[in-house]
């Protein structure tokens, strides 16, 4: 009886430790919830950002687009074309070296987790952020394919 309780206690402690120390799953290795082109994604946001925000909430997105900026701090920007909207992808620590594999102007496919958006709009003077255009944010990303 005493051994049983001790064994159960050990198992609970091991389970707790495993839960506590478990690393964040690698989004790049997971199956994507949404496969989309950057142009289509930004167009969706420009039509109805609140609704699309709900749709993409906590989803793993595989997005194809043209690289417009590469930052050594571990992020990449995909442009959508003429409307100035952009998709900003923060790379996972495990995929930081992917910034070395892409250059500006290149078509690339990234996979990352959707985290939110900044709405663009008419520059209202006191709202500096709105002057930047719509920005879609993804994190924990990595490169799937470069062309």
């Amino acid at each position, binding site marked *: 009886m005493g051994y049983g309780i001790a064994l159960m206690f050990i198992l609970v402690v091991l389970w707790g430790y495993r*839960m*506590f*120390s*478990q*690393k*964040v*799953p690698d989004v790049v290795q997971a199956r994507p919830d949404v496969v989309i082109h950057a142009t289509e994604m930004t167009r969706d946001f420009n039509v109805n950002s609140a609704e699309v925000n709900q749709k993409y909430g*906590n989803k793993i997105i595989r997005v194809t687009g043209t690289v417009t*900026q590469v*930052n050594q*701090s*571990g*992020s990449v*920007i995909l442009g959508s074309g003429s409307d100035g909207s*952009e998709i*900003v*992808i*923060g*790379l*996972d*620590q495990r995929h930081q070296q992917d910034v070395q594999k892409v250059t500006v102007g290149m078509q690339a496919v990234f996979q990352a*987790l959707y*985290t*939110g958006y*900044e709405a663009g709009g008419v520059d209202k003077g*006191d*709202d*500096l*952020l709105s*002057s*930047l255009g719509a*920005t879609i*944010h*993804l*994190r*924990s990303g990595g490169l799937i394919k470069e062309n």
Partner: protein
Amino acid sequence: MRYLKFWLSLFILIAALTAGAQERFYTKTGVVRFYSKAPLENIEAVNNTVTAVLDAASGNMQFAVQMKGFAFEKALMQQHFNENYVESDKFPRAVFKGALTDKEAIAYNKEGVYHVVVKGALTLHGVTKQLEVPGTLQVGSGRLLGKATFALQLSDYNIAIPALVKDKVSNTVTITVHLDLQPLKG
């Protein structure tokens, strides 16, 4: 004719000197880190998709941080941060709106490191508090590099630490901001 040349030259000189101050500088890939020293384990996260804009003429500055954009190493920490602490579904963004206290001290056309103070309001977890943060602004190669480190009290923003871990998680978090700002065209 000589007077015309003089005034024309003066106009061009003034225009050239003030050109830097007409611009807005921005980034969409700013980095915000937070660090909290705790007896059980230090808590650390980074967000490298921070949006920020600085208007050189007015000295006004704004930045927005998506709370779900913070990446942790441990899955449980990430979950607790979003669900129990900052409630990121309910309060998805933190926004700072403020201004440089001494915008005249920065020569945007002269390379160098300038010590600045940014004063404004930070809205986090639905609570807005005034904040005054010292930092540096480095002017060089047509870009600005902004850096600042400051401490926040979680209780100031109604972020409650669950009673079970109250003595294991610090109420004070250190925030480090790193913004590589480029000129905003158009």
